[in-house]
Structures are given as structure tokens and as C-alpha cells.
């Protein structure tokens, strides 16, 4: 049933996440990080994944790569079930899927030279010829806009945050992957640098024919790069739809709340006095029924009793809400 409710089902899905559940124990309590999430990313597509901190979006990204063990559910990459794989087979699949993290400086080993950092994935994947490795490293550094001769012999601390993120992108690209999970890749960067990195990701996507899962909390950033956007709240998907449509006509009250909260750089737009809708509930004991109901102005008894399923509200747009802002056509 969930499968039917998935957008782009007819297109060629490179990644399929089915009913994924990820939980972990902290201090004897269970954190329900990802609860029954299903989504697809078509080949060549960028799917944006947004939500507030603690909503499970990063956990979901890591669970795709099997860096987090799922309790149940499947992750199909190009038809292969990653959750059933182990050892060598999984390692080979991981060469096709790479990850870029939020903090570019912390994700580079401070005591290793840039050339070695970028060559490491090649070493692991068995490229034995040092000359060949050198060549691939130089190619990918030039691609991300860095001069290989000036960069290879230096250490991470000699670079700014923006340059470190370019280096991380180069490392992710060096194995020529098909799929990259970008986990808040620009949140730690300044506005002027952020635009450079977002443009670079778009360029690299075109040049290397990539498919992206772009995780971020900033809706405007997500919209700038995504074909479709999935909104997550407290471990569950609220809404999925084509970017432009989702922003123009959000169906889920939480999506609408997120859009309203974006500060607009125009003094004539007086910020709407924000409705005091409280803060996210705890993923240790998520609310029954719809998890957003404790902050939702539309919540009623049904939202307490019944978990809403993702249902179509418009072409390609799906919302998990008993009282969506737009009615199904």
C-alpha cells in the first residue's frame, strides 16, 4: 500500500527505502529515530530531506548506507537490498554511494595531507597503481575548483571551511559514485561561501551524472537544489512532493509552519507574529497518532487515535495528515 503511495514510482528508482525503522537505546530508553519511512529517489534526481534537528533525517541518511542498523525495513539500491548485505559485498556497494558531512573541517583527518585523504578511498577500493591514483586525485581536485599542485601536500588546517568542503566533495567524487548523501553540507558555511558550494554541487551533479539525497534544515537551501522535497517530523515523513508545488501549496500544517518561519530579507514583509506552537516532542515518547499533533492548530481526536498515512493530495504530492491544507482532487 505504501508502495502505491510513492511518487515517481514509474520512473527508474535508484534508491528505494521501504518501511524503514531505526531505533537506538540511550540510558535504557529507546529513541524512535526513524519510524516506518518509505521513499524513493529516481536516477538523476535530487531529493531534499528537511526537518528540524532531532527529526531523524541524518539517521535516515546513515541508515541508507548501513552505518546505522535498521530494526526493520529494506533499503534497495539499484535493486540490491543493502540491509541483507555484509562484508565485501556491502563494501563494494558503498563505493557507489558516498556521504558528505556538515562539518567539513572535522570530517578531514587533521594530520594527513590532502592528497592522501582524497586517495584513501582509491586505496581501499583497490586502485594499486600510485600514478593512476595521483592522476585521479588531481582530476577531481581540479573539478571542484582547487589547484592540485597547491593543495595536495598541505594539511586541512591550512584551508578555510569552504575549501575544506570542496576537499570533502572531491573525496566523495573520487570513486566516481552514482549516489551522494549530502548531510547538511552547507550549514556550517557563511552565506557567501554557501552559494559557491551549492553551485558546485549542482555542477558536479551534472558532470558526474549523480543522484543526490540532500539533507538540510534550511528550506530555501533545499529548494534551491532539489527536484522533490520530503519533510520529516519526529521520525516520520509528513509530506513529499515536487519542490515548487510543495512550497506554493503545502498540504501538511508542519510544512506550512516551516515555510512561514523562514526570515524574508525584505523589511516590507513584516514577520507574521509566530503562533506559539511550542517545540518538538521527544523522540523517546513520541505522541500517539500523528506525531505533529501537539503543535498542530488543526489537531483533533482523530489525530490522537490514528496514525495518518501518506496519501495523495495533488499530482505527485503526498501528505500524512488527517486534515490537509489542500484537499485531494
Amino acid at each position, binding site marked *: 500500500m505504501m508502495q502505491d503511495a510513492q511518487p515517481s514510482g514509474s520512473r527508474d528508482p535508484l534508491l528505494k527505502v521501504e518501511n524503514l525503522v531505526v531505533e537506538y537505546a540511550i540510558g535504557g530508553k529507546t529513541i524512535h529515530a526513524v519510524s516506518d519511512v518509505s521513499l524513493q529517489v529516481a536516477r538523476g534526481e535530487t531529493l531534499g530531506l528537511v526537518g*528540524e*534537528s532531532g527529526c531523524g533525517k541524518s539517521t535516515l541518511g546513515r541508515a541508507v548506507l548501513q552505518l546505522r542498523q535498521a530494526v526493520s525495513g529494506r533499503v534497495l539500491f539499484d535493486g540490491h537490498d543493502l540491509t541483507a548485505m555484509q562484508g565485501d559485498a556491502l563494501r563494494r556497494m558503498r563505493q557507489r554511494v558516498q556521504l558528505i558531512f556538515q562539518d567539513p573541517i572535522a570530517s578531514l583527518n587533521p594530520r594527513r595531507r590532502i592528497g592522501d585523504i582524497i586517495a584513501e578511498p582509491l586505496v581501499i577500493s583497490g586502485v594499486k597503481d600510485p600514478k593512476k591514483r595521483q592522476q585521479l586525485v588531481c582530476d577531481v581536485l581540479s573539478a571542484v575548483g582547487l589547484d592540485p599542485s597547491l593543495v595536495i601536500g598541505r594539511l586541512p588546517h591550512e584551508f*578555510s571551511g*569552504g*575549501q575544506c568542503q570542496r576537499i570533502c566533495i572531491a573525496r566523495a567524487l573520487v570513486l566516481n559514485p552514482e549516489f551522494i548523501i549530502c548531510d547538511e553540507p552547507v550549514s556550517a558555511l*557563511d*552565506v*557567501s*561561501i*554557501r*552559494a*559557491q558550494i*551549492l*553551485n558546485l554541487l*549542482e555542477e558536479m551533479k551534472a558532470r558526474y551524472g549523480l543522484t543526490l539525497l540532500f539533507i538540510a*534544515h*534550511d*528550506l*530555501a*537551501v533545499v*529548494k*534551491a*537544489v*532539489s*527536484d522533490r522535497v520530503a519533510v520529516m517530523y519526529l521520525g516520520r515523513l509528513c509530506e513529499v512532493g515536487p*519542490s*515548487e508545488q510543495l*512550497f506554493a501549496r503545502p498540504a501538511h500544517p508542519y510544512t506550512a*509552519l*516551516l*515555510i*512561514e*518561519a*523562514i*526570515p*524574508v*530579507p*525584505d*523589511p*516590507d*514583509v*513584516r*514577520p507574521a*507574529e*509566530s503562533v*506559539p*506552537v511550542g*517545540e*518538538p516532542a521527544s523522540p523517546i515518547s513520541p505522541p500517539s497518532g500523528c506525531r505533529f499533533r501537539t503543535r498542530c492548530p488543526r489537531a483533533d481526536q482523530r489525530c490522537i487515535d490514528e496514525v495518518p498515512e501518506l496519501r495523495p493530495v495533488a499530482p505527485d504530492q503526498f501528505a500524512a495528515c488527517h486534515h490537509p491544507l489542500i484537499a485531494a482532487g
Partner: protein
Amino acid sequence: MSEPALLSVEGVAVDLPTPRGNLRAVDHVDLKVGAGRTLGVVGESGCGKTMLSRAILQLLPKKAKLSGRVMFDGQDLVGLAPERLRKLRGRSLAVVFQDPMTSLNPVLTIGTQLIETLQEHLELDGHAAKQRSIELLAAVGIPAPEQRLMQYPHQLSGGMRQRVAIAIALSCEPKLLIADEPTTALDVTIQAQILDLLAREQRRRHMAMILITHDLGVVAGRTDEVAVMYAGRVVERAPTPALFKQMRMPYTEALLAAIPKIDAAPHTPLPAISGRPPDPTRPIQGCSFSPRCRYAAGQCYQEKPLLAVSESLDHQYACFHPIQTTAGVDA
């Protein structure tokens, strides 16, 4: 301009010695904030905005050298005796920092921290201080304030912690509140709530506020005046509506253009600013933005443009080639 300002920063410069040489963090900044007014200070990391706020508060690192004057409520804070500064800070001069987890003491309860401030500055007795603490927590929108007094910072969410930090800052009815990136560590939905809270309390108390941020979107609807900083200097300063109507300094314009717009179509390339801010230990001859500026020409590489008054008295910018108004020349 003739109204007496509550805070007047006059020719303030901050130098920090580093292993790589002298770092000029703040370079001759002049600013004024009137009572009940809000000034936004906008700039990227390393532009000197936080050092400027620390210079105002006289909370600079020990090795830092400060020159210029910081006139607050009729007295110069520079060189004021530590004892008198301590009386001012927390009382009429308050601050909210970016990270509420590090600005609150993790081993003291919320109540202890609030009551301590109240007793120190207002000489309230224990009961009155507790009563006032509960009122303050309620005023900043914390549910069940009485129970919260017994809780420790780690038991609260980020947004709630920032509310507590604001309650402490407001506790002694300050005349000036400096909010240094108060929402950067918070989620968007919480950011909006905290900014609303600050604006509401600012109006209600007729308090002056300096809102420091890297986000032009945050200052747009919530400040009377904006100062844009780049490489330690104020490069443009104007009343908020005037600034957004017509930006004159190319950096301000580029900063705004680089923000992804929610109404732009997906995959629209962003007008990025090429390069990166200059190394503050290696001063640039000429305009510090010139290496990244698309309008830069001869003079920009030789001479530092001064922050000058333009056609309208209160709009200042430091640029030899300001962006022209759409009408061509200002009437």
C-alpha cells in the same frame, strides 16, 4: 542625529596579537544606538561583529588592545574600573550569546542562576527574587515556570535554554541588550519564536537592542537600522527600509543575492561571491572587498574608501563605485 544616543561607539579599534602577527579585528568603527531603538549588525564569520560586541561590553580577551571610546549612558566604558563595569553589566547592559548551553552554568539550577543575578544587582531578598524569577520565566514563554526553577540547563531543549538566557538578560531591566547571533544554534521554527520574543520585550521595555547576525533576512523585519561589517569595518550603514530599498555597497548587495530565495525556481544558479574574506593578519591596500568585487577598478586597489555620508544623511557607505539607483542618479 542630534538626539543623545544611549550608546555611542567612537573610533573603536581592536587589535589581537597572534603568532602570525597583529590581527586587526575591528577597524575604526563608529556606531550609535538610541534608547528604544534596534540596530542590526550583519556580517560573515570573522568580520569582527562579535569582537565589536565584546569591545562594547569590555569583555575582550586579555591580550587584546582597544582604542577609541565607548560612551554608554553618559560615561566612557573604556578604562572604567572593573568594579563599576561589573555593576553595569547584567544591570543596564545585558547580553544574550549564541549558544545557551555554554552561556548557562551547567551545574547550577535555572533558579539559582536567575536569583543570583537578581540578588546581586537589585538587592532583592530571597523570596522576592524567587517570585520575580517565576514572573520572568513566564514572560519569556516558559511553561510551568515554578518547576523549571529546580531544573538544570541540560534538562531543557535548546529553545527553552535560550529563553532562560533571555530571562536572565532581561531580569534587571537593562537599557541596552546585545543579542549576539541569538538564534543561530536554533531551528527555524524556534528562531522565529525567539526573535518575536526579543522584539516584544524590546518594545515593552523601551530597551535599546543590538542584534548581531550573519543573516540579512533576520534583520530585515526587526531592526530600525542596519550596519554591514566586512573585514573589521562598517562598510554600509542605513535605516533598514532605506538599505533594503537601495543597497549602495556592492558587498551588501552580493550578500543578499547569495541567499537562496524561497520563491526562486529549483536549480537556479546562485550569484555567489567569488573568493573569500581577506586574511585579517594581512591588511589589504585599498578597499578590503576589492579582490571579490565585480565593480572594482583602479582606485579601489590603492585607497581605502571611507564610510561617507551619501545623498541622504543617514545612509552611509564605504565605496568608490556605489551601486546606482534604478533611476540613474538620486534626485
